């Protein structure tokens, strides 16, 4: 049920992000979702990619510091209140969201939310109990 997310340490300098995308492009790796968190000095690029291992190896070989994090992908209807509903049940259960990001699927009917919980397994259990659609990694990578 978990999704492998690739995180990359980036210094805040011109062109650094483009180097990452160039490496992935040359390796034929597709980016499914991304978010960039930054401070004044450095940033952390978080990616869901079509081929995690390949992306990781290529970036490591190019000298990047990379990490693997388990995140959870959830599908919600693309309509007002979709996210709020989920956050409400998490709050009740006392599960913290360390960070999250979202994208809308091409078909336009539903949105995909990527969550990083402080307690991943409990988070998954809670979502399943409430009949929320969790997108497994395999499906997300090839979506």
């Amino acid at each position, binding site marked *: 049920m978990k999704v492998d997310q690739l*995180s990359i340490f980036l*210094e805040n300098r011109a062109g650094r992000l483009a180097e990452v995308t160039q490496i992935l492009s040359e390796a034929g790796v597709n980016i499914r979702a991304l978010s960039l968190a930054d401070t004044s000095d450095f940033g*952390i690029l978080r990616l869901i990619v079509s081929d995690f291992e390949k992306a990781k190896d290529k970036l490591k070989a190019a000298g990047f*510091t990379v990490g693997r994090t388990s995140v959870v992908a959830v599908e919600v209807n693309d309509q007002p209140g979709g996210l709020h509903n989920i956050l409400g049940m998490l709050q009740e259960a006392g599960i913290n969201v360390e960070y999250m990001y979202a994208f809308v699927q091409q078909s336009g009917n539903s949105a995909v939310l990527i969550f990083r919980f402080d307690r991943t397994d409990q988070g998954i259990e809670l979502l399943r109990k409430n009949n929320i659609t969790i997108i497994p990694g395999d499906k997300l990578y090839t979506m």
Partner: protein
Amino acid sequence: MIYDVKNETLPREELEALQLRRLQALCERVYANVPFYKKKFDEKGVKPQDIKTLKDVRLLPFTVKQDLRDQYPFGLFAVPKDQIVRLHSSSGTTGTATVVGYTKRDIENWGKLVARCLMAAGASASDTVHNAYGYGLFTGGLGAHYGAETLGATVVPMSGGSTRRQVTLLKDFAPDVICCTPSYALFLAETGLEMGIDIRELPLRIGIFGAEPWTNEMRVEIEKKLGITAIDIYGLSEVMGPGVAIECAAAQDGLHIQEDHFLAETINPVTGEPVEPGEEGELVFTTLTKEGIPLIRYRTRDLTVLNTTPCKCGRTTARMKRVTGRSDDMLIIRGVNVFPSQIESILIETEGLTPHYQLIVERQGNLDTLEVRVEVNEALFSDEIKSLQRVESKVMKNIKEFLGVTAKVKLVEPKSIERSLGKAKRIIDNRNKG
């Protein structure tokens, strides 16, 4: 094992008697043959025959690096040029270059002294020595090379650079000993891992590291990452080159100064007066046997403590504490004395940080600022900003606590701090520019 049992284990009184005889002869020689020293002796009102005890060395004038620059290129040579068989020179990055010359006998002595060092480090004639010090005008490469040959070992004269090739040869030639700078040793280990070669699994067992100051924490790191015993060697081209002092593998507790060839003193760098035994002072050398360019009371700018207590390895020579600071490398930041080695210790003690760092000092208005750039690695990396910021603030807090200076800590990407083949560039001081 001791290479020159007789001279390395002389009873102290015999050693000091030998030093005095050599010092007296040296004074005669330089007074007669080097106009620079004749003038200096005369200015101080001292004659060679005034040297009656070893302590009388304090009557003699100091020599400083600027003197070598002023006498560029050959002004301090004590023999006619036709007796000089080799020249070495400093890079001159911090001023005019300095030049040193060696007679045939100087070269032989140097080889023997480095052979002593190799054996003190645990090497033997049956070993192979991978020499990654730069060959050329720099004394490191040829100094280590002649020492290894004098010992009877097999030398791989690798020199610096071509890091991937170095790793390949470490694997293929399976040397027992490597000579290079400590920062380069870590770079080799990293490069090896990128190539799928773990240096820990190779037969390599001894590393002899010098040419830049390093800390005990860095030694632990090197020993862990390369799976070797890391030995500190000391030397400077003005005095001879590598091999002036060496740590013994038996104790790894201070570097034995080759006192039958070099008379060592420690002085207060400000007053020039000798410090009390056991106190830290600036190391000063008088070269007792050198013919080409003998130096009287040469001020090294390196800070150390001398220890004459017996060592368990059996050598009777005085030991100098590992040099971690130079009196001229010291940064004064808002009135606080900071040595790069102190910052290095704090970084290595912080989990997940590498000893690859750089200090950047700027002046903003009238205020000095210190920025510490340090590389992240996978052990430390997290996908959450707050945990990286926690590391930054922890280092900042430790620097403030231990050194009393506020520093900005900045995490940078691996390998983004330039790895030099010779000495690591640890400090960028922009205060006196523009």
